[in-house]
Structures are given as C-alpha cells and as structure tokens.
C-alpha cells in the first residue's frame, strides 16, 4: 500500500487504532512488572538467595491451593479500597497518598458506632456503621481536595501530614474516651457484638464480604470514571485543568467530590478491618494498607478495573511473606524491597508510552 491516506476504510485499521492503545496499556505495565521482578531477582542473587525458590514460595503460599487463595483473598479488600483512594484523585491529576489515615479513622468510626449500637438489629446497625466509616473517611480525604482547591495546599504533603494526625487522633481516642476498660495490654474500643460483625461469603472459602464490596467499588468507580459524563469531565480536568476551566467544568466540585469518594472507600477499608477481622478498633488498624494501596494504584495506572488483579497479586505477595521469612531466612522487609523496586521500574516505564514503534499505527500500516 503506497498511499495510506486514501485507504483507511479498506484496511482493518479502525479496529487496530482502537486496540493498539489498549494493548500498549496492558503490555507496558506487564513488561515493567516482569522487569522489576527480574531486578529484584538480581538483588536476591547478591544476597545469596535463590529467586526461583522465592517465587515458588510466593506461588505456594499465595496462589496454589484453596487454602492459599483464601489466605490471599482475605487480604485483598483493604488493598482494593486503598488503591481506589489513590487512583480516583489521580485521574484528576492529584497525588493523594494519605489513605492510611482515612482507614484508621473510618475503622474507629465503625467501631465506636458499633459499640453504641450493641443490641440493635444488624439490618440497622451495620448500614449505620458502614455509612459512618465512609462519611468520616470521605470528609478526611475530601478536605485534602478542598484545601487543594480553595487554598492551593499541595495535596500530597497535606494528605500525608493528615495521615499522621489521623493515626495520632485514633490512638488518643482509643486510649482515652473510647477505651474499653477491659482491654488492658492493648488499648481497644469495646468489642463489637457478634450480630454486628461482618462474616464470610457463602462461597466455600473463608473470605469475608469486604472482598465482594471492594470489587463492587472498583466496578462502580470504573463505570463512573469511564462511562459517565461526570467521569469524563474529571478526566478532562486531570489532563488539562485550564482547558476544563475554559469549558466551564466545575473543577473544584469535581476535585472535592472524587477525593471525598476515594476517602470514603478508604474509610470502608477500615470498616471491614474492624467488623470482619479485629472486632474492635485498636493500633492494628494501622497496618500499612494505605501505603501498599499507593503501589496498587500506580501499578494499575489508576484504572479502577485493573486495581482488582493488581490488588490480588500484591495480596498474594504479602500473604507469602511469613513463609518466605521462615523458609529462606529473609527479613520481613524483603517484600518491601521487592515492592519498592517494582514501583520504581513501573514509574520508569511511563517514559515508554507513545515511543515504542510496535504500538504505533504507522508501524503496522507500513506492513499491510
């Protein structure tokens, strides 16, 4: 074909023009993930450890049997919610990394409301706790968006400072006003009544309902972001805030709304940690899910649907941490090193978008 301009309809190019960017969006992060794991393998080799044994143990502990899948899936829920707390603001161009604080306060809200609602029916109690956690988390992270819009405060630093403040606030309230006098060694709120605990899904493996709600949250976020005019407006604001303002889009409301939605999801992570795992709010709520969520969101390139497989993968990594420590005599920080290396390589791969000829339409036109 010599004259490409006259023949666009007779070739399969419209389909290609549609699929090439999608292929690029999957292939580059996947290749970066593999590269990151390869770099981490080199690190293991310098430490005299076998990368093959390492990855075999991850497979064994995280993904091989029904029991290991249960181990993995029970850790997915907070990563889904925490990943959304980073991904939704990121689509508007905001780097919000303080989800840990919203998890802590959301969990505390659920526990305090639950303690007050002892004896009520779960049909009333659980929705109130659910809404309370979402509201507190949403208000906490939403105020980061508000500060950004109304005061020009950098959202990255503000959200992280607020995470420290939130954790201190939670510790203060758990050790002071809301402390259950019976919790001696580990200050906690009063334990939830059994009726107000969230149980496992009826699917054969012991995975609590947080997983289903987390997946649902990802799907809803995807629909909202990629299939509604609201999400379209948000993405325009993320790409070019001036253009969005010129178009008359309510940039301020979009930013505050989506940061608040992300915060509400982080609050729900706290809700499920308290109602399905711990049974009360205490220092265990601060387990680092908010920070792993940052990695989840960046690996998924802030696509809510992609968050689901990425969160499962990272949950599997973290589920196998204990076995790796015991079998290979590696410190628990090994997983953190791996996550750090993968994170850096993933960000480095951002430079490849639009630059690899194999994903360009012209490359294929020249061959048809």
């Amino acid at each position, binding site marked *: 074909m010599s004259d490409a301009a006259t023949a666009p309809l007779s070739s399969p190019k419209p389909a290609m023009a549609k699929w090439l960017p999608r292929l690029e969006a999957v292939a580059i992060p996947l290749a970066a993930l593999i590269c990151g794991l390869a770099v981490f393998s080199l690190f293991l080799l310098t430490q005299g450890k076998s990368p093959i044994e390492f990855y075999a143990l991850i497979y064994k502990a995280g993904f091989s049997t029904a029991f290991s899948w249960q181990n993995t899936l029970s850790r997915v829920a907070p990563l889904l919610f925490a990943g959304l707390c980073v991904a939704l603001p990121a689509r508007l161009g905001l*780097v919000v990394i303080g989800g840990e604080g919203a998890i802590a306060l959301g969990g505390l809200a659920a526990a305090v409301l639950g303690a007050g609602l002892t004896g009520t029916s779960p049909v009333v109690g659980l929705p109130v706790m659910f809404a309370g956690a979402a509201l507190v988390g949403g208000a906490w992270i939403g105020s980061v968006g508000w500060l950004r819009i109304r005061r*020009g405060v950098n959202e990255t*630093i503000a959200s992280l*400072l607020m995470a420290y*403040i939130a954790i201190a606030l939670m510790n*203060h309230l758990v050790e002071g006003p809301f402390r259950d006098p019976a919790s001696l060694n580990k200050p906690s709120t009063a334990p939830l009544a059994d009726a107000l605990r969230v149980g496992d899904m009826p699917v054969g493996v012991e995975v609590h309902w947080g997983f289903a709600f987390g997946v649902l949250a990802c799907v809803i976020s995807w629909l909202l972001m990629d299939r509604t005019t609201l999400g379209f407006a948000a993405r325009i604001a993320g790409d070019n805030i001036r253009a969005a303002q010129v178009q008359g889009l309510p940039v301020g409301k979009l930013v505050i709304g989506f940061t608040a939605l992300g915060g509400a999801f982080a609050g729900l992570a706290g809700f499920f940690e308290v109602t399905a795992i711990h049974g009360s709010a205490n220092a265990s709520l601060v387990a680092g899910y908010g920070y792993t969520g940052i990695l989840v969101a960046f690996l998924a390139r802030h696509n809510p649907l992609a968050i689901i497989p990425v969160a499962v993968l990272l949950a599997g990594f973290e589920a196998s941490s204990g076995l790796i420590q015991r079998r290979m005599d590696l*410190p628990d*920080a090994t997983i953190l090193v791996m996550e750090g290396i993968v*994170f850096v390589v993933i*960000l480095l791969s951002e430079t490849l978008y639009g630059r690899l000829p194999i994903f360009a339409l012209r490359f294929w036109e020249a061959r048809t």
Partner: protein
Amino acid sequence: MTDIGLWGVPLAILGGAIRVSTPFLFVSLGECLTERSGRINLGLEGTLVFGAMTGYAVAYQSGSPWLGVLAAALAGALFGLFHGWICKFRGVNDIAIGIAMMLLGMGLAFYFGKPYIQLVAPDLPAIPLGWWSSVPQIQAALQVNALFIIGGLLALALHWMFRATRIGLTIRVVGDSTDAARAIGLNPDTVRLLATAAGGALAGIGGAYLSLYYPGSWNEGISSGQGLMAVALVIFARWNPINCFWAALLFGGAGALGPALQSVGVTQGYYLFFAAPYVLTLALLILTSSPDKALHGAPGELSITK
C-alpha cells in the same frame, strides 16, 4: 537538684528544640537545595531512614560515629543520584518517583538494618554549652551536638552560595527556567542531578543524627516522618536556607512539647502532643499557600507549585 518549677517546661522545650530540630535542619537544607534546582525529592524520608541505618551500622563496625555520618552522607548521595537519574527520562513524575524511593529506601534500610537492631553503636559526642550555669536543667538543655552547629553554619553557607556564587546562580537559573538555562549553555539535567545528590547526602546526615545521637539507636520506627515534614518546611521557609534554620527550630520545639510537659507531670493527651508538629506543619502550609498566585520565592520549574 535545683527546683525551678514550671520554668522547666520552656527550658525543656528549648533543649528539646535543639535536639529534635537537627534532622529537620539537614533534610530541609537538602530539600531546599534540590528544590532550588527545580526538582522535588519526596523520597528524602526513605533517604533519612537509610542514612540512619547506614550511619549506625558503619559506626558500630568501625567504632567511629563520624565515619558513620560520612557513610550516611555517601548513601544519601547515591539515593539522590538515583532519583536524579530517573527523573531525567521524559514523562517520569518526580513526585511519584519520590514516593517509590521512599518505599524502597525504607525497605532496604529495614532489610539491611535487621541485624543491628539489638546492637549498641557509639554515639556522637555533645558539646556542653551550659558549663557556665550551675542549674542542671540549663546544662541539660544546652548539651548541643556538633551537627546542630554544623547545620547552622551550613544554612549560612548555602544562603551565601545562592546569593553570591557562580554555583548558586547556576542552580537558581536552572530552577527558574529550563529554557533560559539551556540558552546560556547549561545542562539542566546535570545540575539537577548534582543538586539532588547533594540534597540526598544532607538527608543522609540527618538520618545519621537520629540513630547516632537522638534518640540514638537504630530501629524500624526511627523516623516519624521528619523527611516528609521537611518538604513542607521548605515551602514554609520560602526556599531560603536561613528561614529553614528557624523553621527547623520551631518544628523541633513543637516536637519537644509533649516530652517537656510529660517531664513536669502532664501525661494527658500524649498522642495529641505527639501530633503537634504535624498539625503545626499543616496549619503553616494552609496559611502560607494561596489558591491563585504562585508562591513568592518559589523556583519557577518546581512541579509542586505550578
């Protein structure tokens, strides 16, 4: 012991401010240098923790705390070089890279630092500037570490460098306009690479202070976000090294508030006092930011203010 009653509180805050502020001082001076060149390194928290581990490990192995400080500075410079090198690529976000480097720095520090948690390394010596007083609280408050004094002198030196030297002018030009820098034959990437490396080295020294002087031991909770607060502190200090010094003292004082009140028997709300530096940082950030105009004194190429 002389009874000085409630006077013990301001004295303890002063002493605490000097003790607590030193890591803030070094990290903020490092971040100031990096940001003046037009790049932001959010990863200094990881550099700080890795510097604390390196300093402690080398001081333990060699028996010399100053060798530990040197090693921490070198490790910090390596982290800075890595950050600067990655940011050179098109389309790579320096803030996101900073977050990744923060995770990586902490991961590596915890990984390599595990064997050193129980061990005892030699501390950096303190200079008793309170020798003239017979009041033990004053003597305690004025036990000043040499690194604090070095940091203060460094702030003056950096201020002079930005104002009056060729290097300072080069950094400022690169920070204010990449295009202008290219037009006069400077290579912005190289200048930023070096500024990030130097900033990383300073953050590494700040970390070594944490593990070798105050609190003076290595564990995984050694840093409570000083590296991040320093980034906010630089904004509050309007990218001026002298202001960084005063801001670091102020933050140190806020951090010393809780322990000082505890020492006179106020134990209520320990966690709230613990949060004081974060609340102060956030409040100052809100007060000094503005929604519609670029921050006064901000380098023009800085992504955080654009």
